[in-house]
């Protein structure tokens, strides 16, 4: 049906400055989006590690329960899940939970299932020989896991986990449906009030792009930070790596001079 009022507004001049004028409202939404994404992702990471470990355990009771957890939480559409938890469960059972809490809870549950599978893959990608070598020098099982297996698994899972974090920023927009005033909710309220749909949603797109791009470079930085560089033979810039280089050189010199003095000592004795 043709709506004359909407048509008139659509013909109005494009006003990019509208985004700038409303920056405070947008930034309020951005702040909440970042808060939700970071909190939910941190919780999901901890929970996901637990899920991965339990999934790999030989416990005949726990392993299938965790497998079911993963399959269920991965399978429910996020939007349906949010509505079900906030309007369904919370009202039916009179659970006192805020919309923000409900949103974080749902994002955490779903992402813990995804991250659990990523972490399991990463841990299993570390060869058995690593565990055997660590045990063979007398390390305990927990030491072997935390000092040898986990650090290698972390390197393996950085790229896919980074993708999940970018996904989290985007998926956090779905909690708009229960009224959480994050970036998308703030934008749609603003658009409906001002009828400046193009400017408002363009603003939302720009802010989401800024957030996800920042996250992308964050992941790139982490990958670089975890790269393996020989500080003795490579020119390194970070002060930490430089100090390490100086230290290694000192150890080298000390051991070399001990060896010298030992061999010259035997020479004079003979």
């Amino acid at each position, binding site marked *: 049906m043709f709506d004359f009022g909407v048509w008139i507004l659509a013909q109005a001049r494009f006003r990019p400055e509208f985004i700038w004028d409303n920056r405070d409202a947008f930034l309020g939404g951005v702040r909440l989006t970042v808060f939700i994404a970071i909190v939910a992702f941190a919780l999901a990471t901890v929970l996901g590690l637990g899920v991965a470990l339990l999934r790999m355990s030989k416990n005949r009771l726990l392993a299938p329960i965790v497998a079911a957890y993963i399959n269920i939480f991965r399978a429910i559409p996020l939007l349906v899940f949010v509505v079900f938890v906030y309007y369904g469960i919370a009202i039916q059972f009179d659970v006192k939970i805020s919309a923000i809490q409900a949103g974080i809870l749902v994002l955490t549950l779903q992402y813990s299932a995804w991250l659990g599978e990523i972490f399991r893959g990463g841990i299993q990608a570390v060869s058995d020989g690593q565990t055997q070598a660590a*045990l063979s020098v007398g*390390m305990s099982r927990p030491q072997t896991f935390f000092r040898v297996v986990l650090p290698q698994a972390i390197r393996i899972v950085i790229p896919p986990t980074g993708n999940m974090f970018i996904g989290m920023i985007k998926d956090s927009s779905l909690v708009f449906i229960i009224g959480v005033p994050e970036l998308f909710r703030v934008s749609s309220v603003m658009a409906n009030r001002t009828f400046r749909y193009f400017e408002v949603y363009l603003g939302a797109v720009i802010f989401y792009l800024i957030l996800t791009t920042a996250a992308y470079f964050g992941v790139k930085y982490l990958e670089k930070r975890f790269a393996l560089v020989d500080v003795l033979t490579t020119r390194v810039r970070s002060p930490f790596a430089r100090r*390490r280089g100086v230290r290694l050189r000192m150890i080298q010199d000390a051991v070399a001079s001990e060896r010298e003095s030992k061999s010259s000592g035997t020479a004079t004795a003979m």
Partner: protein
Amino acid sequence: MSQTGDAQPVVRLRNIHKSFDSNHVLRGIDLTVGQGQHVVVFGPSGSGKSTLLRTTNLLETPDSGSVWFDGKEYGPGIEGEGLPRGKARLLRQEIGMVFQQFNLFPHITALDNVALALRRVRGMKRDKAEHKAATYLDRVGLLDKLGAFPSQLSGGQQQRVAIARSLVMEPKVMLFDEPTSALDPELVGEVLAVMRDLAESGMTMVVVTHEMGFAREAGDLNIFMDDGLVVESGGKELYSDAREPRTRAFFEAIL
């Protein structure tokens, strides 16, 4: 080098059995390793050599039989003897192992590979641990590679770091599981040289290898295994006149 037989026993395996599912890999192994003795184990692949080594430091738990080391018994044990029991983790601190695939920790430097167990197992302070680790890397000729990561080292260098990683714990026994089999031919020599030095220093060693030159030179007790059993064992004479046809056939095939 030390003699066969009369040396003080360090490790004793008695009637060791081990199966993986329906595959009966070890079928009653008895072996006594004396102080300073160099035991060389041969046999076709699948004969149970690796499993024998891995059972000795309890990376595999035997299904039955007894591992005796330094006054304590490990594994299921022999019924009715009531020997004092030991913890596998403590045994592994005293018995070093070198793997065919090196198994260096790829995420830390050569120095940290060697220092890790000193710090985490022996509880040594970082300064002391790193200094001692560097001394052992120097011993295998790799003092200039302290800061290198395993992926930046050749196979021979990696295996020497792996040997230093075991030696730094000052083990009473060293186990070598085909330490040169994964190396390019030109890199075998540098690893064997380190092993020869170690043998000359009096270290007790059990070596699974197909390097016949090293075996003839260092092997005080030579064991031929096939199908989960010790077919024949003996001193250096085993190489020239083996009694068992299976042993002779194996030597003929690899020489």
